[in-house]
């Protein structure tokens, strides 16, 4: 059985903290997320393959965060930017979030219809790539490329500058 030592955990924590902070954009939430990750990692240590603790912890962090988002959505308790107390979300983070989401709304409308449709089907409605391919009657690979182009275009519009795309990001790991 694989064991995780305290020293190994300590080594991973700074990177995990940064990752959690970038996901949540709030120090308190990031602390809670890291705490949940560490608890889960220790409880599930027997599932760790002993190879790359950092990568495994990132996986846990991403899953815990996604679960939190899904629970918030299914309970209908999405973050209310206007009314959430500052003790939970800092004013600066709220303002940044609000501006970010306004940017999403504003720039989404500038996309061509085809881009809006693929983003709506997969990102908003939650169709799997193969399901979107079936209704659009196109190959899954086309969904994959069309979606990445559409979302990259949206992010590019929001950044108002060029973004790395395609082979420029390619690397072998």
């Amino acid at each position, binding site marked *: 059985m694989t064991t995780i030592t305290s020293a190994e955990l300590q080594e991973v924590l700074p990177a995990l903290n940064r990752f959690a902070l*970038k996901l949540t954009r709030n120090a308190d939430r990031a602390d809670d997320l890291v705490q949940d990750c560490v608890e889960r990692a220790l409880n599930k240590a027997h599932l760790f393959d002993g190879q790359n603790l950092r990568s495994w912890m990132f996986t846990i962090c991403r899953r815990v965060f996604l679960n939190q988002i899904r629970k918030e959505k299914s309970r209908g308790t999405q973050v209310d930017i206007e009314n959430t107390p500052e003790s939970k979300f800092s004013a600066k983070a709220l303002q940044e979030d609000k501006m970010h989401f306004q*940017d999403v709304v504003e720039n989404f409308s500038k996309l061509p219809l085809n881009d*809006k449709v693929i983003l709506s089907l997969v990102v*908003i*409605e939650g169709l799997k790539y193969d399901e979107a391919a*079936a209704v659009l009657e196109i190959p899954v690979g086309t969904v994959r490329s069309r979606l*990445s182009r559409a979302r990259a275009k949206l992010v590019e519009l929001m950044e108002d500058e060029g973004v790395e795309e395609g*082979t420029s990001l390619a690397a072998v*790991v």
Partner: protein
Amino acid sequence: MTQPHYLIREQDLHAYIDGELSKPRRRAVERFLADRHLTLERAIELFRTNLGLHRYREKFYEDQELKTEVERLLKKHRCAGNEPPHFENVMMHNRG
């Protein structure tokens, strides 16, 4: 045991955000992200963009042309014997 090598491209990052990767490829992307700060930032930006798209769903469908087309395609999806997509369920639940 030697791990297989994967070529990670922009599309893999998007598929990772959408939860569409096989387990080995997902791990490869996570290894890739863990070692590259800038790409991690990009992944988070894409992820936050997804959250923005979820949050303002109704606003996007004020575009009648888009709404009509998406409804047509979702109807086609259901007529093929599929369950309504996950997020549609969530929205219906929230409305109830």
